[in-house]
């Protein structure tokens, strides 16, 4: 009656178990179907931060959550195609760059740091609209950074610092 999980070692043993692909077809399929919707929702939260609750931080967390869902259900090999470690590092930096870039641009236009109203001359719109666009840009930057950092935190804690590629090479020796 009870199934024997004697062959547990292939799926259960070893390091980095958290980011292995699960062998449950239900969880895999539901996660596969829901992931794009979660991502669109996260972008909605980022983009509409000035009308409704949310903003860069919350949207970034939801985007990272969708990637984490993909990571724990489809495994690192599948997620790597979409979001590799190199991309994580690059996105971390790019987000901060967008944030600081907008802030410094305001200084160059003659205002304080993150004084969006001064961007109006550059974007050729009136100051209130420039303020709205500036906030949007800053939130996109914050969202990108938060997503990348969240994802890398989960990745590093679940692997314990060992990259999955290292493990496969070391197990061959």
């Amino acid at each position, binding site marked *: *009656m009870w*199934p024997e999980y004697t062959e547990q070692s292939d799926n259960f043993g070893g390091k980095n178990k958290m980011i292995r692909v699960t062998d*449950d*077809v*239900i969880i*895999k*399929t*539901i996660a*596969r*179907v829901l*992931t*794009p*919707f979660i*991502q*669109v*929702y996260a*972008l*909605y939260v980022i*983009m*509409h931060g000035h*009308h409704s609750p949310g903003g860069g931080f919350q949207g970034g967390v939801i985007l990272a959550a969708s990637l984490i869902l*993909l990571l724990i259900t489809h495994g690192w090999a599948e997620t790597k195609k*979409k979001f590799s470690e190199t991309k994580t590092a690059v996105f971390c930096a790019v987000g901060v760059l967008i944030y600081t870039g907008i802030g410094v641009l305001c200084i160059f236009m003659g205002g304080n740091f993150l004084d969006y109203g001064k961007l109006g001359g550059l974007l050729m719109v009136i100051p209130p609209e420039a303020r709205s666009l500036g906030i949007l840009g800053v939130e996109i930057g914050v969202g990108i950074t938060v997503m990348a950092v969240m994802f890398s935190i989960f990745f590093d804690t679940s692997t314990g610092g060992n990259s999955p590629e290292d493990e496969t090479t070391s197990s061959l020796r």
Partner: protein
Amino acid sequence: MEVTLLVQATDDAFRTLENARQQAIGLLDTAVGLTAETRSVQKKNIQAIFRGAQETRSKLQNFIGTFFLMFVFWVLLSGRFDTFHLTLGIICCLFISLLSYDLLFANIRIGDYGLVVRRFLSYAPWLIYQIILSNFHVAALALKPNLPVDPHVMKFKTKLETDISWVTLANSITLTPGTITMDIKDGEFYVHALDKKVADDLDTGEMEDRIAHIFMEADHIYVQDALDVARIYGAIR
């Protein structure tokens, strides 16, 4: 007197026979219709494969499908129809479609999607009825003072093939009276049932047949039904 009785009895017998014949014809028609429907879809599949089309959709088709679905979802979420927000939506949906075009429509066979959707919609009311039934069942069990639960674990091998039908079956089992899918291993479902009765109900396989009907798998049952009915029909004639 006896003659009239005899005539009446014969009449009754003929009427019964005629009724049975009509029923058999109806059954045959239904079965033939179902089989024809399924057959046409299968023929389309085979034609598509022979024409050189891939078994699943191409990347571009997936991309476009994902993009439009995501854009509809964006408009539902956003609720703002000015140019700025719609442009923002198009950019976001393009980004998402680039990122995860292979997730939403993976592993779908080429076939008549309209038929699958229609069959699924006709399956939904039965499922909702079962869900409501299951909730009353659990409520009655929880509220009874002596707590008459008698759990059983059972396993059965499914005849379904694709993962989407497995998911439908497993989630339907979890939502319907007194049963939870515990594990799936090599096509065997391990089901925890609250009661001996519901375990037996599940064993009849009605739900599995319905889901096989939706996704047009294990079609041999319908062909077999048609053949059976045809045999009965011939015998009656």
